């Protein structure tokens, strides 16, 4: 298990380097980027498109070492990120990026986290119901609704939810963030696609477990449906479910970008969308890397949880066929 963690951490570091190189490369290649080192003009000319005032530009030259060769720039970009010295950005010249992130990222993470928790619980419940009632109308109805949930992206769901709950019934707020009730619709919009795919996964996985030989053993020992499902099959089908939580979380986190914009939630997604539209390169660089790190850490946690829960990985480090 220890070696497993070390190995995973090593791969994570590699992935992080790749993301940072790609982000840096993209920013350097972008037309009008301030990362271009124009020796003659001290880097200022390169940024004319960005409408950066000279004083600000000078501070960026210093902060990002724009008068040095690219590898030095890259090194300081990486170092700055790792040591949490995020500097300032074009759009928020008087607000350190770090405190901007501190202010906005919790909301985004909160959205993604609550959506994951709610989504997982609902998925498990629906998946179990459908699997236990396999091949009945309960199963087919649940799964049809789940299919709709998978097929329709969260932002379309969000628009429909806004329309129904905010515009027609007027029972929930649909704009801004002033309290927990502002969380309800965004989380619901994010949860529905998650439930769509995860409950299907849960059902299929549970059905597969329920059809395996050891379940026959359970019945042969005098167990009933309850013992089969809750004593054996559920636990075994939750394990593979954990492995899909990781990608789901990543998808959710990306979904928050649009959802925050739709609901006017002051989260990191809105900041990023704004930064992208305004070509706020310093902010784009930091936040892309930040999102990537969060995704990687989540995947790592998911894998470790899986490893910790599956005795085969915990004890011998692998499962055959996986």
């Amino acid at each position: 298990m220890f070696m497993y963690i070390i190995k995973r951490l090593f791969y994570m570091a590699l992935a992080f380097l790749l993301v940072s190189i790609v982000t840096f490369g993209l920013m350097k290649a972008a037309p009008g980027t301030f990362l271009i080192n124009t020796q003659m003009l001290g880097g200022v000319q390169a940024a004319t498109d960005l409408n950066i005032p000279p004083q600000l530009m000078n501070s960026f030259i210093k902060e990002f070492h724009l008068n040095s060769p690219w590898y030095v720039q890259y090194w300081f970009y990486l170092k700055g990120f790792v040591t949490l010295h995020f500097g300032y950005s074009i759009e928020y010249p008087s607000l350190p990026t770090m405190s901007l992130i501190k202010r906005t990222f919790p909301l985004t993470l909160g959205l993604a986290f609550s959506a994951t928790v709610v989504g997982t619980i609902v998925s498990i419940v629906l998946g179990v119901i459908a699997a236990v009632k396999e091949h009945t109308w309960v199963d087919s109805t649940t799964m049809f609704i789940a299919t709709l949930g998978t097929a329709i992206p969260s932002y379309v769901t969000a628009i429909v939810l806004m329309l129904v709950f905010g515009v027609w019934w007027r029972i929930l707020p649909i704009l801004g963030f002033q309290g927990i009730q502002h969380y309800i619709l965004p989380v619901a919009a994010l949860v529905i696609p998650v439930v769509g795919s995860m409950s299907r996964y849960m059902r299929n996985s549970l059905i597969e477990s329920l059809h395996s030989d050891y379940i026959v053993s359970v019945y042969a020992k005098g167990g009933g449906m309850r013992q089969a499902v809750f004593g054996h099959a559920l636990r075994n089908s939750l394990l593979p479910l954990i492995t899909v939580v990781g990608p789901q979380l990543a998808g959710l986190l990306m979904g928050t970008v649009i959802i925050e914009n739709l609901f006017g939630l002051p989260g990191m997604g809105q900041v990023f969308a704004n930064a992208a539209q305004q070509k706020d390169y310093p902010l784009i660089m930091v936040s892309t890397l930040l999102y990537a790190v969060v995704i990687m850490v989540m995947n790592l946690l998911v894998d470790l949880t899986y490893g910790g829960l599956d005795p085969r990985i915990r004890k011998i480090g692998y499962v055959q066929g996986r």
Partner: protein
Amino acid sequence: MAPLLEISNLSVRFHSDKAEVFAVNGLDLSLDTGKAIAIVGESGSGKSTVMMAVMRLLQSNASITGQVKLDGTDVLQLPEKAMRRLRGKEMAMVFQNAGSSMNPTKTIGDQMIEPMLFHHMASARDARQVAVKLLHQVGIPDPEERLNNYPFEFSGGQLQRVMIAMALIADPKLLIADEPTTALDVTVQAEVLILLKKLQRERGMGLVFVTHDLAVAAQVADDIYVMYGGFVMERIAASELTTHLVHPYLRGLVQSIPKIDGPRTELPYIPGQPISITGGLPDGCVFASRCDKRFVKCHERPRHISISQQHSVSCWLAEGGVEQA
């Protein structure tokens, strides 16, 4: 005294989208307490289906007719709840593939004590004591520690022993072993067989042993039922197997057992492929298409006739008297 298990006219059919499968067709069988019988047949002959029908563990697309009496009670008529009370306690089962029949993510201790817990026979702690004793009996060293191990930490032979112990934990009257040794090495096979036989004798259980291996069957069982295409071809006492057999199919099976001390000739085998029991059965004898003794009469289905108290057969040849092997 009434037999422990008495099956009469048992038929099992599976319904699928495409066709009906005639898995078992009018089977009769009886087993006395303390005795062992073996059901022998190729894969697809319906031998395992019979026992799954007895346990009522078949999938929902199976329809079962006939009678299965355990201690005089027809288990096919019992409600599911009452049936559950029998499983594991009155009759227990050892499966073919111990590796997949054990939950890979639970310790064997947790799995072994389940029959006792399901039937409220003991607390978990007491049940573990019983499990330790049983593991010891089936020859697992350090049983107390091994209780906390997971199935993947056992070898195939050990796991099969654990399975046997698990089946015995609630002290059943009837033990059904469904090809318990097929997946094992030959040497391990013998050990497990001996163990099984020993335990059956000691406990005075009824044992139904399902296998495709006639030689194994002869070692373990008192009576042997040979199945083909969902029918019992011949029922014969193990002691008479080599001397009194009637059915050409059984003869073919016996001949294809290699004899270590015999001359090295080419091994005879039964030509053709096992009959398909999907869709429908032939009007005549199900074995006719592969039978070298086939004659006109074989276009009709043979009756199952008794030759002696422990010997019966379904073959037109038997109508004309017993033909010596």
